[in-house]
């Protein structure tokens, strides 16, 4: 289905983005594992969504065309979006 297609495509794009980051954030090796961790904790519905596809595609395209000039801006944007859609939820308080 479409959702599965988005999931596979998003995983592929995210891997490409991580590779790009790995090549350009060598001075801060903690960045890539942090970004990967955010992705791993994102909700499965969001990871397979068109919304994430759009954000990821935009960040990747810009990071490629403008090189490392604004790379951290795009990394930060992705981290923020992934955090906002984290699968981790606070447990409701017991009565």
């Amino acid at each position, binding site marked *: 289905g479409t959702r599965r297609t988005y999931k596979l495509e998003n995983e592929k794009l995210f891997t490409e983005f991580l590779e790009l980051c790995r090549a350009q954030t060598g001075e*801060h090796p*903690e*960045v890539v594992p*942090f970004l990967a961790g955010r992705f791993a904790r994102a909700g499965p519905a969001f990871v397979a969504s068109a919304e994430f596809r759009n954000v990821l595609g935009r960040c990747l395209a810009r990071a490629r065309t403008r090189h490392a000039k*604004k*790379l*951290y*801006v795009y990394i*930060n944007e992705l*981290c923020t979006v992934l955090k906002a859609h984290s699968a981790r939820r606070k447990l409701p308080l017991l009565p």
Partner: protein
Amino acid sequence: VPVTMDDDDDDDDPENRIAKKMLLEEIKANLSSD
């Protein structure tokens, strides 16, 4: 009039510099909370 440049990396984008600082601080905060 001679134009002087900062010693910092001239190619460093201000927006990128701020984003980098925020991201590294967040990573640091996450590491210390684990």
